[in-house]
C-alpha cells in the first residue's frame, strides 16, 4: 500500500494572543490507499477542524499536508478548489443536495467545475447513480427522495469525479439505523473498489465498520487502532 494522506505536525489556531484557540496541536497521521478510516472524538475535540483540513476547505496554521504526494497546505483558494474537485469527494451529514434540481443534475455538478463535456457528464452521472442503486430515480428531486436515497445521491456525487479519497462528515447522522447500515455497506464496497474513505463520526457502532479508528481529543490523536471491520452486508459467496 502507498501513502495517500500524510499529515505532519498539523496545528490549527483560531484567533491570536490570549483569545487564541488551539483546535489542533500537532497531528501527525498517515492514511494508505484503500483504507477505511473512522475519526472519532467528542465535540470540541478538533475532529471537525481536522476534517476541514483533510478536505482542503481550510489551511493549517503550521505543519505539512501531503495529499497524493502533493504539498497542499500552502495553496490558495482557487488551487484548493481544484484539489477538492479532482482528488476529493465529500459526503455531508445533511446531504447538501441542491434543491429543485434532479438527482442526475446534482451528480453532474462537480463535473461542471472540471469542464467535463456535456455528454460524458451525463453518462458518468448516470453510471454513478446506478452504482449506488438509484438508476431508476435519475429525475427525482431531493424532496421526492428518502433520507437514505438522498445520501446515496450525495455519495454518487462524491464518486463521479473518480476521487482518491471520499471524506464523509457524520454521513449517518440524519439516518435511521438500518439505512445507516446500508450506507456503510456502500462505503465498504467503495473501499474494496480501491477508494480511500475517511469518515467522521461520534457513534461507536458506525466506527465498527471501518478498518481503522482514530480518536481525537484536545487537538491531538489519542489513539489509532487498526481493526477487522464488521461486515455491513453479508459477503457475497465467492
Amino acid at each position, binding site marked *: 500500500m502507498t501513502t495517500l494522506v500524510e499529515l505532519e505536525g498539523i496545528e490549527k489556531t483560531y484567533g491570536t494572543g490570549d483569545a487564541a484557540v488551539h483546535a489542533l496541536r500537532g497531528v501527525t497521521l498517515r492514511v494508505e490507499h484503500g483504507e477505511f478510516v473512522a475519526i472519532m472524538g467528542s465535540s470540541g475535540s478538533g475532529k471537525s477542524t481536522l476534517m476541514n483540513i483533510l478536505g482542503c*476547505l481550510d489551511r493549517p496554521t503550521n505543519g505539512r499536508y501531503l495529499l497524493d504526494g502533493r504539498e497542499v497546505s500552502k495553496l490558495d*483558494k482557487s488551487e484548493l478548489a481544484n484539489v477538492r474537485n479532482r482528488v476529493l469527494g465529500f459526503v455531508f451529514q445533511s446531504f*447538501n443536495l*441542491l434543491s*429543485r434540481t434532479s438527482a442526475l443534475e446534482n451528480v453532474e455538478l*462537480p463535473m461542471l467545475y472540471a469542464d467535463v463535456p456535456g455528454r460524458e457528464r451525463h453518462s458518468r452521472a448516470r453510471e454513478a447513480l446506478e452504482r449506488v442503486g438509484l438508476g431508476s430515480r435519475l429525475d427525482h428531486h431531493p424532496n421526492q427522495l428518502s433520507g437514505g436515497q438522498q445520501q446515496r445521491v450525495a455519495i454518487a456525487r462524491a464518486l463521479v469525479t473518480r476521487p482518491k479519497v471520499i471524506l464523509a462528515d457524520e454521513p449517518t447522522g440524519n439516518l435511521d439505523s438500518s439505512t445507516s447500515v446500508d450506507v456503510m455497506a456502500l462505503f465498504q464496497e467503495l473501499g474494496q473498489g480501491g477508494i480511500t474513505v475517511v469518515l467522521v463520526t461520534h457513534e461507536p457502532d458506525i466506527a465498527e465498520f471501518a478498518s481503522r479508528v482514530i480518536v481525537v481529543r484536545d487537538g491531538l490523536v489519542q489513539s489509532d487502532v487498526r481493526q477487522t471491520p464488521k461486515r455491513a452486508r453479508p459477503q457475497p459467496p465467492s
Partner: protein
Amino acid sequence: MSPLQTVRIASRALVRNKLRSFLTTLGVVIGVGAVIAMMAIGSGAKAQVEAAFAAMGTDLLVVLPGSTSAGGVHGGFGSMPTLTWDDLTAIQSDVSTVKNAAPALRSSLPVVSEDQNWTTSVTGTTPEYFDIRSWPASSGNVLTQQDVDSTNKVVVLGATVSEKLYGPNASPVGQTVRIGQNPFTVIGVVARKGQSPSGQDYDDTAFIPVTTFAQKIQGGLKKYLSGTVYVGAMPGQTTRAQQDITALLRERHHLAAADDDDFSIRNLSEIAGAQEEGTKTMTTLLASVAAVSLLVGGIGIMNIMLVSVTERTREIGVRMALGARPPDILAQFLAESLTLSLMGGVLGVAFGLGTSAWLASRFHWPVLVQPDVIAVAVAFSAFVGIAFGLYPAWKAAQLDPIEALRYE
C-alpha cells in the same frame, strides 16, 4: 466552467424565482423605457424645430430698415425706410459672401376670386426670393425675371390662399383673381411650408412681381425700399455675410463710428441655434431624470442579488466544496444580475418604443426614436447589471466554504 454553463445556471436560478426576477427587472424596464421615450420626445422636438427653420430657409438673413427717432421717441425697426433700391443692388453685387438677395414689400390686401375672397399678406418680390427661401412651386411656376421686367400682373399663391379661394386640391393656375382694383392671372401655387417657429402660417400669402407691387399697390416706385430685404448667404457664411452687409450699409449710409445702425439684420440661423439649444437642454433634462430611474433599477438589482447571495449561502458552500473556484461563483452571480438587467433592457426597449408610439398617436407629439439611443440604453442596462451585480457577486465569491456549509 464554460460561459454557456454559467449562463444556464444563472437563468435557471432566475426562473426558479419568476415573480421576484420579474419585479427586479421591472425597475430596469421602466428606466430603459423612460430613457428611450424621453429621448424620442427630445429628438422629435429637435427635429420639429429643425424642420421649422429649414422651412424658413437656410443661410437666411433678413435686413430690416431702421427706426425713426424723433424727439427721443424711437419708432422701432421698419418705421422709417432707410434702405434704398441701390442698397439692395449693392448687397447683391458687392458682397462676396452673399449668394443672392430679394426685396419683400408687403401689404395686407383682399384677394378676390369669382366667388370667394381672402385677405392675405401680398408680397412684391423677385424670382430670387423663391430660391433664398427654398420654396418651389407645387403647381405652375414661380415668378420669372420676365414678369418683373414687364410689370406683369401675375400672382403666385400660397397653399393656404389657394385653398381658401378654390378649395383643397384645386388647381387655380390660369384663373384670374382681383387684388386691389387689378386683375391678376394665377401662374402658380408654391409648395406648403407649414408654420414658422412662432406659429405663423407661411402659406397664407401671395406673391406678385415687385415692380407690379410698386406700381399698382404703392402707386409708383420710390427711392426707398419700403419693405425688407431677404439675403441668401453663401453656404455656411451666414455670420460673415451679416458682418459684410453691416459694413457695406454703414458705409453707404455714411454713418460715423459712434452712430447706431439705421437698419437691422436678423440672422435666422442664430435664432435656430438658440432654439435647438433649448430643445437640447430639455432632452438632456428628460434623459437625466430617466437615467435616475435606471439607477434606481440598478439599486433594486443589487438589493435582490444581496438577498439571493444570503439565501443561497449554503448552495455556494456546496459548490465550493465540490470544486467551484471563487471566480466561478463570481461569474455565476454576475451572470444572474447581467441577465436580469439585459432582460430589463430588452423589455425596456419594447416598453419605450410602445410609449413613444402611444404618445405620438394619443397626443400627436413629434417623437423620433434613434437606433443609437436604443443601443446606448441596452448597453447602459448591461453596465448597470455588472456595476450593481459586482458587489453581491464578490461577496458570494469571498465566502468561506466552511462557514457557508454551516449556514442555516
